[in-house]
């Protein structure tokens, strides 16, 4: 099975994010970048599918500047076969991303597109859904388990929904977006890193894809969350109950 996996370069969730004083964005100096953690789960799943099926191809795709090569190289070191980087410096909204991915899917004709359920930088949670709509393909979002029929023509996905699990079945090709509990991604091994040096990262200028990526959204302002106030220590259970009643008004 040929799987296309989307990879976004995002700030390391471990780093402290600071908003620029004018609210136009975040301070990017000295930030470490990583693969969006949900995309990392998608790469891992694609590799497991390939290993289990004993064949197939895992193709990584990303959109962004040259620096994204770093994240693609990491994905290749984990074991993906090759990568495509759509070179694009301008900021994109989810619809523009979905349109560009549509063009790539038409070129690559994969049986499966695996994506993170959201990118941890803008938390939009819509590129996968939009791509499915544009392609008119079935979609399974928030996957926590994926199985394929023996003929590899259909799949079953367990989804994490509010209050429980939902199992859905659908025909391939399809879009699946990954949730946190789908798997635990492997580390890129040293032999993997050495092999990745020779793997292809094909660069495509964004204009070559001929998609209309005019932004429909503008980010008006970013603001840091309000500072947490210091908590209060109370001496007795009664004092706690009183405060929960009179101050927090929860009981």
């Amino acid at each position: 099975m040929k799987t296309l996996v989307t990879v976004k370069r995002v700030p390391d969730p471990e780093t402290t994010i600071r908003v620029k004083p004018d609210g136009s964005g975040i301070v990017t100096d000295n930030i470490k970048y990583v693969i969006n953690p949900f995309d990392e789960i998608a790469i891992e799943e694609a590799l497991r599918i390939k290993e289990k099926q004993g064949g197939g191809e895992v193709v990584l795709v990303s959109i962004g500047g040259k620096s994204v090569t770093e994240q693609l190289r990491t994905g290749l070191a984990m074991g993906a076969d090759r990568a495509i980087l759509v070179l694009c410096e301008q900021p994109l909204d989810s619809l523009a991303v979905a349109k560009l991915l549509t063009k790539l899917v038409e070129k690559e004709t994969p049986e499966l597109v695996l994506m993170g359920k959201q990118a941890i930088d803008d938390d939009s949670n819509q590129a996968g859904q939009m791509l499915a709509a544009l392609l008119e393909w079935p979609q399974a979002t928030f996957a926590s388990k994926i199985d394929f029929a023996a003929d590899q023509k259909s799949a079953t996905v367990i989804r994490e929904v509010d209050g429980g699990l939902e199992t859905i079945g659908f025909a391939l090709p399809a879009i699946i977006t990954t949730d946190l509990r789908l798997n635990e991604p492997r580390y890129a091994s040293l032999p993997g890193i050495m092999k990745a040096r020779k793997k292809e990262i094909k660069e495509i200028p964004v204009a070559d894809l001929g998609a209309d990526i005019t932004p429909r959204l503008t980010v008006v302002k970013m603001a840091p969350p309000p500072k947490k106030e210091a908590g209060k220590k109370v001496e007795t259970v009664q004092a706690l109950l009183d405060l929960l009643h009179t101050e927090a008004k929860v009981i």
Partner: protein
Amino acid sequence: MPELYDSCLPLTTLREEEQLFRDTVREFAETRIKPHVMEMDREGKLPRELIDDLFRLGVMGIEIPAIYGGAGANFLMAILAIEELARVDPSVAVCVDVQNTLVNNALVRWLNPEQKARFFPRLVRNAVGAYALSESASGSDAFAMQTQARLDGDSFVLNGRKMWITNGAEAELYLLFANADMTKGYKGITGFVVERDFPGFSVGKKEDTLGIRASSTCELILDDVRVPRENVVGEVGIGYKVAIETLDEGRIGIGAQMLGLAQGAFEAALAYAKERKQFGKAIAEFQAVQFQLAEMATEIEAARLMVYNTARLKESGASFVRQSAMTKYFCSQVGERVASQALEVFGGVGFTKDYPAEKFYRDAKIGKIYEGTSNIQLQTIARTFLGR
């Protein structure tokens, strides 16, 4: 990598794959090792699952060629791995250090193709290796070893005892030195690959040590151990060369271990200094504490340049005997000094096992002892310009 003339690239500039590898090992150390450091120290044991993870990560066969399943990477990669592991746990670092810079390194150089095909796939997959030179009566004077190898038909029969062998408890393959002809003195010394399950071979007691407690240091007992001729490393009688030249490279590894240790101790002290308040402010705001931290950082920088340069010298094929002795000598001092200062930054809690400082301090001491004591390093350095 920036476009500069090769000759003026900073020593600490890493290639893309070196950087990715270093970051990966760091993340592995932070997530898979750090939570277990104190428990491993207490129990005096490296859990097998961790060793398996190290094999999976590919750090147990860094320089073994890809045709045997190794990574086919360079010596600097091994150095980066040791440094990053030691930053979190010098015990794990020395396990990886011995495997790569002593065992694999010697075998890559001295084994014939048939032997490589026999041992390398195991060394990259799951077999831990150990390097057995020292004995109770021959440490600094390693070539005075008493373990003997007697040729009998097409095998050698080995008798004797080895002491202080790192990875002794976990190893499956031992690069072991014995004298095959006592009348020839050190020119009788021969290297052998000894399998743990050879009849007559046993692993004795594990030492109860001050530091790197999770790393095993064991006695090896050889009682009429039959080792086939095909397991001779290089040739009979050149073991002294195999042993000494391997140690020249190994010492850079110990330099890297001490460097990583110093880095780990420094980072812990820095974080604590920013957090701990006395006299109404963070202790990092006191100039005296700042100067202590600055001093530590400067020493670490110097140590890093030395380690990387010596590793790069080795890779370039130039002579590096003096520099590797200097590297171990200097880095073991930096490790001990920085660990000691870091502990002091912590104050009273630094002396307890609730904080990482005391362990780094205990772990630092070994840097001045194994792979040649500091006196032996100084002797080696002096000999490079004074002769014997």
